[in-house]
């Protein structure tokens, strides 16, 4: 949850070169921090803000474990600079739960067992949230295409697809997705 984010100033070590000030609204809370331009958004979130729910997997723009929403658009935060997020809104997995209640996507991953080791799960869920915001009732093919930038090495994706379908149904109250 956003309120548990504890700002730490580890990114402002004096030997770290040119420093720029950024203000990023993370999970509805604005943070103004000093960062090196080369600080990646994922390190800003994890190391400066302590939001370790966003995972670093491959670090090479392949796996999608680091997916967060920037202005509601899912991106790989290992390949975005913190300075690029200046003035923008970021949502991480910590910002999905609201008022002590899991987000329908989190519910879906729980109920449908959409994970085994859980490493890809934060990124997978952020991509799912963005998909359902854009397309509340996606077909299985649309789901599979949407998560094609998020790799899971455990599940074979079956239960992840089911989890997203579960969330779609819960959100829309509809009886079923498109075939």
């Amino acid at each position, binding site marked *: 949850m956003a309120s548990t984010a504890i700002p730490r100033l580890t990114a402002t070590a004096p030997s770290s070169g040119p420093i720029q000030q950024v203000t990023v609204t993370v999970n509805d809370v604005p943070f103004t921090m000093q960062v*090196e331009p080369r600080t*990646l958004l994922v390190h800003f979130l994890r190391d400066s803000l302590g939001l370790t729910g966003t995972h670093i997997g491959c670090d090479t723009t392949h796996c999608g474990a680091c997916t967060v929403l920037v202005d509601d*658009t899912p991106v790989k935060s290992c390949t975005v600079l913190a300075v690029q997020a200046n003035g923008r809104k970021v949502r991480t997995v910590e910002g999905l739960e609201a008022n002590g209640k899991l987000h329908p996507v989190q519910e879906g991953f729980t109920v449908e067992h959409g994970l085994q080791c859980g490493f890809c799960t934060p990124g997978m869920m952020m991509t799912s949230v963005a998909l359902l915001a854009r397309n509340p009732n996606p077909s299985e093919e649309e789901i599979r*295409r949407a998560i094609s*930038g998020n790799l899971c090495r455990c599940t074979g994706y079956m239960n992840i697809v089911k989890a997203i379908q579960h969330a779609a149904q819960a959100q829309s109250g509809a009886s079923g997705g498109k075939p």
Partner: protein
Amino acid sequence: MIPPKFDYYAPGTLDEAIGLLERHQGEAKVLAGGQSLLPLMKLRLAEPKALIDINRIPKLAYIREEGEQLRIGAATKINALNDSEVIRTHYPLFSDAGMHIADPLVRNMGTVGGNVCHGDPGNDLPACMLASGASFVVRGPSGERALAAKEFYRDTFVTALEPSEILTEVRLPKYRAGDGGAYLKMERKVGDFAIAAVAARLRSDAKGTIAEAGIALTNAGPTAILAVKAGERLANRAGTDADFLDSGRLAAEAAQPTSDLRGPAEFKKAVIQTLTQRTLQRAWERAKGRS
């Protein structure tokens, strides 16, 4: 991995951005989507002293038909290209290609201009631009100039763009009834660079024969390659399977693939021949469907 140190600028106007590039005398890079540049910097394959982020410059992202051209702003995201109705209906080779660039998350950041300017022969849009007869509008300290796509690609990662110039717009000949295009890509896995890919754009005349054909290849040499003879072979042809077979052979001859982890060169040539035939068939079906 963290990139090496650099200075970061986020100018609000193109003139400011060009001024910054000039001031850094070839030591600065333009940051558009960053999906190729930042990984290269992490690996120390690129170590620019400064990044000029053009994403705060307004009016660089658009897709619109104007006069006899389709104009695409350089900062247009790949996914905006894929979402565009006009692209899907009238310039389908671009949505064919756009849907196969990396993955949906990368496409949310990656831009048309970045893909065009990076100069990697594995990028998908350069071949589409060559096949379509595109031109690129670039701005620098001494003003604006337009460059034909076929004059733009010099070598791997080397383009005709001067160090202080920025690509601002891509221009394509406007769609006419009887135009058809397609892009087919063979890849080892979703999101990979192509083993090889082929872009084709056909323009038919009133008699229903091919008036003009552009064919270009991705990842088949040091740059994207315009297969000139393969295109010329189709002029005034009826678009039979035999025509496309001939053209496919000529496209394979124009290719200069190297053997690498995506396969031996001879295999890639065979892939290009077959892909060219299939791409032309699809483009021609689309052309006929609308003429």
